[in-house]
């Protein structure tokens, strides 16, 4: 039996040089978008998904007070907004915030989870307590979606929700969800509005941990899993920080220095429980944590985390021998004064190390222009080169994603920006940047989960090529800020022409190995472990028992009949 399945897509080796950079491709791609806030600083995300399974990655952008957009990749570097045709119009009644994508019902097609903070009335009236349900759109496989928030059981909670993280917390193959909430929520809806309810509305919130029940329903299981935290939260990031092959959870909280700090929840799988370990691991950041990015920066096989903040971002490097994290932002050269939201690690120039993009923007209504950062990895420290590479945009940045726009093998970038509330000098629009700086070789790896979730959220890919070791975790969303990067793993290799080996470790710990892989191609690795639907299995067992039972009864009856009188 083959130990792995593999599909190959080859692309031409890049002939670009250092003098080429990122090209602002927004207009050429036909993108016209900005996020409009409801009131205050909140919102603006984008998810990368191939919603029509045509092999090109599409984008879903939230718009806040503006219409959301579903941008279908036209395979020629342009996009077409098919939001209305795709049956997404029920999102128009809401002020949307974040978005993430998964195949929630395991039918092979990517679905959408969208957070909202309030409804939009036709009269433009604002609620005294802005809250609303979140939205699930299930892919109908025909280019359209159907809203199924009600049947999934999430429509009764009225919340002020932010980031969506997706991971299979119980390893049953169905993607589970953690939704961050900023202000306190109302389970079952907000029934009465009095002065007392209004003054209580500004309190910290709990998040929602949704266990996916057979792809048909979400059950809120915070209590069952021992979750008791609150916070002004921008949501969580599912990640296996302790390398024990289950999904742990980092919770990013705003105002950590006076309300609730960041949390680190260690999954106790197979027990259905998370334990709070942020203090022991020194991850109880008491900052304005807005978002983050995951990478094994120092290639020690343990993941590190870049957490965005107001003023100075944190670069939390993991020290596994001591079981702690230490902020190394200053040493690593990323400690620059700004206000950051999105962050994305990838090897933009394909020289064999991870670079870092950071989306910055003022709080809005504060409207001081501040530019985005491009940190080039130079011998394991970072140099800010946004000006040199054409990324010095002064828009009011929020969520950002990396993905491969044209299937040319390098990673492009999209940054959502808000419309400034107050007078603002530079333009502030969502921008798409085409990567024209990638010079080295690269390999893209797409995982196709089988026993795991279809997107294989939380799987690890470890790549070895010469002395190079890269350790990548498949993104479950809400890394960056309110956004969801491509799940296609990208490995920059510099001049290396062969990948010696690739180890894929699926959630749960089963590994598959590939050897001697040529570069400059996209491979798809399919999980060999097969999916076992517990419900189906139970049903089959039940049927089997019934058959046996009937058989036994029939046997005895027949036997009885056959006995002589």
């Amino acid at each position: 039996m083959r130990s792995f399945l593999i599909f190959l897509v080859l692309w031409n080796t890049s002939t670009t040089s250092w003098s080429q950079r990122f090209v602002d491709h927004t207009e050429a791609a036909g993108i016209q978008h900005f996020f409009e806030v409801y009131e205050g600083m909140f919102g603006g995300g984008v998810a990368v998904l191939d919603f029509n399974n045509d092999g090109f990655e599409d984008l879903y952008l939230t718009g806040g007070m503006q219409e959301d957009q579903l941008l279908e990749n036209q395979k020629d570097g342009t996009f077409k907004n098919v939001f209305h045709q795709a049956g997404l119009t029920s999102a128009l009644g809401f002020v949307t915030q974040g978005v993430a994508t998964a195949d929630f019902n395991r039918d092979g097609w990517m679905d959408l989870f969208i957070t909202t903070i309030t409804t939009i009335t036709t009269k433009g009236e604002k609620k005294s307590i802005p809250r609303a349900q979140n939205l699930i759109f299930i892919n109908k496989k025909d280019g359209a979606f159907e809203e199924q928030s009600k049947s999934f059981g999430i429509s009764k909670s009225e919340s002020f929700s932010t980031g969506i993280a997706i991971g299979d917390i119980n390893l049953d193959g169905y993607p589970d969800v953690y939704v961050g909430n900023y202000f306190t929520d109302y389970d079952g809806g907000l029934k009465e509005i009095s002065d007392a309810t209004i003054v209580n509305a500004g309190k910290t919130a709990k998040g929602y941990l949704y266990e996916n029940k057979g792809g048909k329903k979400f059950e809120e299981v915070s209590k069952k899993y021992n979750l008791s935290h609150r916070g002004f939260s921008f949501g969580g990031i599912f990640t296996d920080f302790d390398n024990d092959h289950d999904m742990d959870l980092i919770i990013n909280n705003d105002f950590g220095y006076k309300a609730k700090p960041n949390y680190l929840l260690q999954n106790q799988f197979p027990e259905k429980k998370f334990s709070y370990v942020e203090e022991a691991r020194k991850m109880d950041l008491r900052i304005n944590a807005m978002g983050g990015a995951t990478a094994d920066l120092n290639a020690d096989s343990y993941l590190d985390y870049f957490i965005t903040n107001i003023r100075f971002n944190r670069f939390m490097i993991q020290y596994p021998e001591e079981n702690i994290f230490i902020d190394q932002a200053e040493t690593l050269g990323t400690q620059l004064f700004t206000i950051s939201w999105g962050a994305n690690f990838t090897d933009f120039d394909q020289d064999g190390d991870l670079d870092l993009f950071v989306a910055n923007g003022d709080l809005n209504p504060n409207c001081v222009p501040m530019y985005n950062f491009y940190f080039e990895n130079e011998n394991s420290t970072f140099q800010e080169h946004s000006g040199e590479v054409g990324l010095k945009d002064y828009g009011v940045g929020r969520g950002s994603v990396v993905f491969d726009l044209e299937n040319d093998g390098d990673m492009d970038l999209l940054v959502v920006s808000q419309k400034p509330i107050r007078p603002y000098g530079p333009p502030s629009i969502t921008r798409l940047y085409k990567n024209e700086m990638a010079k080295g070789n690269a390999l893209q790896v797409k995982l196709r989960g089988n026993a795991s979730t279809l997107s294989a959220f939380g799987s690890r890919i470890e790549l070895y090529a010469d002395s190079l070791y890269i350790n990548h975790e498949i993104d479950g969303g809400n890394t960056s800020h309110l956004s969801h990067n491509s799940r296609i793993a990208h490995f920059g290799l510099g001049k290396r022409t062969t990948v010696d080996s690739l180890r894929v470790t699926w959630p749960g710990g089963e590994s598959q190995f590939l050897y001697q892989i040529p570069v400059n191609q996209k491979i798809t690795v399919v999980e060999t472990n097969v999916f076992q639907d517990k419900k189906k299995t139970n049903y089959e067992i039940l049927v089997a028992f019934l058959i046996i039972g009937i058989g036994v009864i029939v046997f005895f009856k027949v036997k009885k009949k056959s006995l002589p009188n």
Partner: protein
Amino acid sequence: MGLLGLLLVQCEPLPDNIPDHEVAAQWADMTLYITKNTPANSPTFASRCLGYLGLAQYEAVVHSDPKYQSLVDQLNDLNTLPKPDTNQQYNWLLVLNHSQSTLLKSIYLQTSDENKQKIDSLEQRLSKILIKNTTAASAQRSLAFGKKLAEHLLEWSKTDGGHRGYLENFDPDYEREPFPGSWKPPLFAQSFSHNPLHHFWGENRTFAPTNTLLELPEFIPYDPAKGSPYYQEFEAVYKKERTLSQEEKEAAIWWSDDPDVTFSPGGHLYFIATALVRKNKPDLITTTKTFASVGMSVADAFIKCWKWKYHFFSERPNTFIPEFINQKWESFWPDPPFPAFPSGHAIQAAAAAKALLGTFENKTSFIDSAHVGRERDHVRGVEFKARAYSTIWSIAEETASSRFYGGIHTPQDNSVGLEQGVLIANNILNLKWKK
């Protein structure tokens, strides 16, 4: 007695008697409990409530003492209040008890039902004790008079500009054209709102007419040049933050009085008034005059302070220092969401301390246990330990200095705050309390 003590007392068997000052102090405790435990509170709104509740204490008992008189016709727009029937007997402590309960529940309309039940419980408990020494008719009369008094005070309060002010903490439509040295919403912030708190508060009605007329204080003009008087103000803050002693850190944290988790700066001074009352046991009229003068001084101090804050709309050290001295600098304590000059802490502490000097000698030693029992400040590594003082004025000075240690106020914010606070309290003390 602390707030915990208050709750314990409610579970104890009823005594036959209760000292007069203790009835007033227990209502001050309850006022502080509600202030602390009602969300969306602010130093401005809290100070207003202290003004009305303190005044209500005094007006409830003023007719018990022939030497004293009501403040009707002496305070802005207060032209009438219910008068007792001079031919009938009243239990003035019951009047105080019922008027405090009624006013506290209605002025803190937004507090939880659970908190309103706590207020009712205290009213019932004190009523059961006090009724032992009074006739049923007198008790009934006192109840009716107390409630009527509270209702009048509430109606009067509705026209001062701050009624239900918690619904308008941060006006999203408020805009100010930026200018050099203007306030910028904080990055290291106490509040998630980026609009400043209660921009209209300076237009609210003061208690004392003379406080309405106070003149604008002087402000050192903006000049970012190194060595200028303006620059030196911020340089002093910057240098202090670099050399903070543990003692100074403790003061900075102790007096921070964040309205999200405490009874706010005004409440802290009202708390000290309860400590001094319990220690010195003044008679009832003096006790209630103390709460009235502290409450109204603090309330007027915040109104004047806000008027000047929004007149000058001046920047905080967290804006100036990163721009002109050191970009990586951050204050020890996060910025509150409103402009700097003058310091609200300084002005209200000076006003309250001066008001307290109307009752007590400056050389009065006491222990301030306002925050004892609070979880230590993890971010700054500071415990909440009781603090001892030997003079009343020292609390005003320490409150002002604490904001300098916290890195959120310059020396001039504090010195002007202290000066003006004294003037404001003098205008309260100079009302004709006695006939």
